[in-house]
Structure formats: structure tokens, C-alpha cells
């Protein structure tokens, strides 16, 4: 049984979990192995690239990109630092934590109707754009503020060009 590529999947297949087994004393570190595919889905690989934590923390602090985030119906706004997210999925997770708008991460990546919420942002030109269209870095450089809209308020179908 020689493992070759796709190693991460094989590891999970061969494991037998203990009944009701949950993690031992280990930390809450991310365990997923992404495989680092062609488009560099680097979000989830622990400890890569191999820059020591001390340097990582220091680099992150230097280029802070705080933007305001508002959500329809929420009594007050929040602020997030875009430079601390590595991609749309992480931003989605962060927003879910702040506002409880589950599924927003997925909604950014795929133009599905499944999520109740949709995220839009105001860019440098003052236009309101749908989050997720442009590459992540370009987004962080042009985003001035974020807004999470409830689908029913957003006049949904107009925002998703494919669906007319």
C-alpha cells in the first residue's frame, strides 16, 4: 500500500477513530492539509511557508488594513483587519464569527443562492462591488468598507449576473 500523491486523503482513510473520540490535549491548531494545488490554495497549510511565528506576527502587524463592516439589521458596525486574512474563506470565517452570518464565506466563492447573506464592498472609486470577483490581494488593496446584506434586502437576482 504505497502512498503516492493525494497523501492527505489516504491518511484519513486509514484512520480508525476511537468511539466518541475527540482530540486529546492538543491545541486548536488547524489540521487540514490542502495539498497546495495549482491555484495555490494555501489558506489551510499549517506551518507553511516556514517563517518563524515571531517574524510572521511582526510582518502582519506592519501593514494593517482596517475596514468598517456593517450588516443589515445589526445595531453597530465592526472593524476587521484585512491584512490578517489570507483569502476569501478566512474573511468569510471571520465575518461569520463577528456577525453570525453563516455561509457568507461560501457565498463569496460561488455565486450560489444558498446563503442568506451576501457581501459587498465599496471600492476606491466609490462603487459598490460584489465581494469575491477579483483576486484576494487586489480586493484588499481596493476595499474601503464592507457591507453584509440580507438577500431579501439586496434585490438578490440583480447582483448575480448569471441568474436572469
Amino acid at each position: 500500500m504505497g502512498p503516492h500523491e493525494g497523501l492527505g486523503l489516504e491518511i484519513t482513510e486509514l484512520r480508525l477513530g476511537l468511539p466518541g473520540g475527540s482530540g486529546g490535549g492538543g491545541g486548536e491548531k488547524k489540521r487540514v492539509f490542502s495539498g497546495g494545488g495549482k491555484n495555490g490554495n494555501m489558506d489551510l497549510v499549517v506551518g507553511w511557508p516556514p517563517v518563524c511565528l515571531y517574524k510572521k506576527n511582526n510582518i502582519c502587524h506592519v501593514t494593517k488594513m482596517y475596514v468598517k463592516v456593517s450588516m443589515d439589521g445589526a445595531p453597530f458596525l465592526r472593524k476587521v483587519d484585512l491584512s490578517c486574512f489570507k483569502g476569501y474563506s478566512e474573511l468569510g470565517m471571520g465575518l461569520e464569527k463577528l456577525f453570525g452570518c453563516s455561509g457568507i464565506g461560501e457565498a463569496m466563492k460561488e455565486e450560489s443562492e444558498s446563503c442568506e447573506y451576501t457581501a459587498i464592498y465599496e471600492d476606491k472609486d466609490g462603487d459598490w462591488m460584489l465581494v469575491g470577483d477579483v483576486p484576494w490581494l487586489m480586493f484588499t488593496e481596493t476595499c474601503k468598507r464592507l457591507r453584509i446584506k440580507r438577500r431579501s434586502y439586496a434585490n438578490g437576482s440583480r447582483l448575480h449576473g448569471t441568474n436572469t
Partner: protein
Amino acid sequence: MVYSLPEEVLEHVFSFITSDKDRNVVSVVCKSWYEIERKCRRKVFIGNCYSVSPGIMIRRFPEVRSVELKGKPHFADFNLVPEGWGGYACSWIDKMSRAYPWLEEIRLKWMVVTDESLELISTSFKNYKVLVLASCEGFSTDGLSAIAANCRNLRELDLQESEVMDSSGHWLSHFPDTFTSLESLNISCLGSEVSFSALERLVARSPNLKTLRLNRAVPLGKLSTLLQQAPQLVELGTGAYLSGVRSDVYSALSKAFLGCKELKGLSGFWDVDPSYLPAFYSVCSRLTTLNLSYATIRSPDITKVISLCPNLQRLLVLDHIEDSGLNALALSCKNLQELRVFPSYLYVADANVTLTEQGLVSVSQGCSKLQSVLYFCHQMSNSALITIAKNRPNLTCFRLCIIEPRTPDYLTHEPLDIGFGAIVKHCKNLNRLSLSGLLTDRVFEYIGTHAKKLDMLSIAFAGDSDLGLHHVLSGCEILKKLEIRDCPFGDTALLANVAKLATMRSLWMSSCAVSIGACKILSRKMPMLNVEVTDENGTLDPKLDSCLVEKLYVYRTVAGPRSDMPGYIWTMDRDSANKI
């Protein structure tokens, strides 16, 4: 009949032999040399604190003045070693406090140190001089207060990159007014402010202070005050390198730097405002070390600085230097020996930063004394690697990190096997190598065949099969440290090379294909090894031999299995591999 010199004469001769390796060689010449040597050994270096116990060290070397220990595996730097893994300095410090009243120096790396231990250090040793805590954790400024208050003859306090819990900014004031022996102070890792007046008074009364590394919180405006008190400094680490638009800060700083005629090394440079850079131009011609790895200044500013540093030997910098800056480096710094280029954006290439393999090729061409390279980039080619190898056969350390795993040669789309092959073939004295990019088993064949002086090898996301690992273990004769992550290496290679593992300091394998069964066999065959298996998820069934292990750490030891592991790490017991 064997003629031998009197003991005192031999002892005197041995006192000139200071390197650990030489001392170790001396000690195995014969029994009497072993006995004489052990009684007069002053410095002990232990690369893995679990390879031996404090008791064994103390019994063998009763007259030690300096101890250096390392705890966690190197991959702890990258978050791969879980919380609570170990590396506790406590028992070492406890036993040494009783056995070595004349101990002067303790250097610890990747270890967990408590305030109680620091307090014990401060009160146990009559002539304590040097404390270095590199990448350590577990202590607070309370422990530092004790060191400050009690170590009357302290020369060096270095907290490099440690995580210190800040409970008080005033620990510096615990150094008594009569304390004047400080030579080196590194507090760059401290998160919060230290009392500036205490710092200033300390610097003012330390005429032998040669190294001062401040933390980010020390404002630039105060730096000139400190420099005026310590113009004899040889190494300086600034705090945050920016100030408001105040020309008096600039002129005071500039004047202060002018007075520092001995300054050879600069570091710090957090939050740099480029307009303040010229303030230190006056020292550039003497600089041998420059660490700009926290400075997000752009290439033109970096280029300007390095073009003023013809004597530079060591440069640490962000990829903002770009190829253009590296070309300038190649032209200006003919004495360069070590280059480290770190990524500014950790995940995706910043469109505004053009740092490619060309920069490294330029430096390899222009800097004939270049020996050590650490380079993060996004693209590489075999031809570039071959050029670098041919330009610089004197390389001893080559660590290349192509940020996206498994990236092929961007020109040919081939694996980078032949490129790295050229590196090991031409650089015959290479002792440290880190691989990246798309690599097949072939590269390991090259490494096993040519890298005969390799001491440490780091591998990630590489190889096709066990053959790769087998080439390394069977070919690299003096390999001591091997760390591997996310490679398809498993039981066959490991079990075919069990004897090799006893000649190495340690082997780390995570997210590979090693099974519990193989770990049991390894442990049974090699009783002098600790075979430690990590199972953070609690999914590993120790009775199921085919279960794959998340993380494996194997190291030789004379101290037996360790007893301070967290619940999710087990040592394979050579009699029966059962979870406790």
C-alpha cells in the same frame, strides 16, 4: 609500556581545546584521557535536552561553567510542535543549581522556562554571567526582575525571540545602582514598554556595553539619548524607526550615530519611515551586519543603504529588496557571506514586488565569499540553480523556499531535481540544505550520492516514494538532523535504515506515511532511540499496526523514555507499544 604525561600537564594542554567536537574526540582516546578531560571540561553543549539527563551530565562533568541546551525540534518555529510538547528547563536548572555553584553561563533554545527557574538561577550561582533564552517561553518579567536584582556580575542577558509574559515594565529598575558589568542586552522581543529612565540609567553606567537590542516600544526620539550614553556600542537594535515630522529628532539621531565609531551591526527597524534612514548613513561604511527583515521600505531605499556598506558580511532583508536591490548588493558588497531574504507577503506574490530567482543568481555571481543563503521566492528554474551552484561552490548553507509547494521549474515545467542536484554536486562542503518546489525521488538520489558533508536536511512536499528517504538515509554519511513534512515516505525506508538513526541527533516526520507498526518495530530494534508518536486528534489506535502516525520524532538518548510528555504523545515502548 605506555608513556604518559602527568595529569596536570594534560589538563593544561586540554585547556586550549575549546570546541565540543574536539573535546569529545579527546575523551575517547583512552580511559585516562577520558577521566582527565571530563574533570576539566568547562563547556557543555547538548543539542537535544532529552538525549541525556541532567544527572548524567553532572556526574560526568563536575566542573562545568557553561551549559547550552536545546529543547523542542526545529519545526517548533513553524507551529508544527503542539502546545505542551515538552522542553522544560526546570529539572536541568534545579539540578545544576545544586551541583554547579560556579556555573556562569546558561544558554537555552526552544525551551520552556519558568519564573521560579529564573529566580533559582539568580540566587544559586555565585559568579553568574550569561543568560541567553532564545525562542523560549513560560516566563514573565518577574523572572527577569529576579535576574536583574540578584546577578551582580551579569554580563549578558539575551531574550532573542522569546515569548515573555509582560507583567511589569519596571523589571529593569531592579538592576542595582552598583551594577556596572553589563556587556550585552537584547530585549527586542518584549511587547510592552520598559521604563525608559531605568534603561537610560542602566546604559549610562555600563561602560562595557557592546550589544544593545531594544524593543519596538522604544521611540526613535529616545534612541539618540541612549547612543550618546553608549558610543562604544558594536551592535545596535533600534526600536520603531519612525517619528513625527520633527527635524530635531532627525538631527539628534544623526549626530548620535556620528559618535558611534565602533558600530558594526544594526538591526530592529520596525515601522521604518524612510526619511529617517539617512541618519545612520555615517556608520554604513563600517557595518558588517545589517538586519532589515522587519523594515517594509521599498527597493530604492534599501538599495541606497546597501550601496553605502562595502564591508557588509551579513544581510537580512525582506523581498522588498527586489531583484534590482540584489543586483546592487552584488555590485557593492563584495564581502558578503550570508544573505537571508524573507517574504513580505506570506501567501501570494505581491504584484508590486519583483523578486525572482534572478536576484539570487546575481548575488551568487557578484559575491564570491557567499556561503550561506536563505531565500524565499515564488519562482525558480533548474538553470538558475545550476548557475548558482557553479558560481558558488563554496556554499555551506542553502535554504530555498519556493512559497507555493510543489512548484515546478517555471520555464520548463519540470521538477527541480537537476537544479538541486547541481547544488549538492558542486557545493562539496554543503552542511545544511532545505528543499522546496516540485521534486521527485531523483533529487534524493543526487543528495545521497553527493551531499557527503550534509549535517542538516529539511524536506517538505517532495518525493514520490520510500526510495527518496532511503537515498538520504543510506547516502548522507554524517547527517545529524533530518526534518520532513508532507512527503510520501514511510515504513520501508525507515526500517531499512534503523541503524542510521542511532548516528543522528534526531528525525522528525510529520504528515508522512509511517505506520504505528513500523514505529513499534523500530523501537524494538533500536533500544537506544526514543520513538515518539503524536496523536493530537485522538484517532490513533495503538493496536492497529497499519494506522498512520501524524507526527513522529525519533532521537537517540541515554536517558530512556521521557516522562514529561502530554497525553497525546507516546513513546513506543520497546516491549509493548501500549498507550499509558
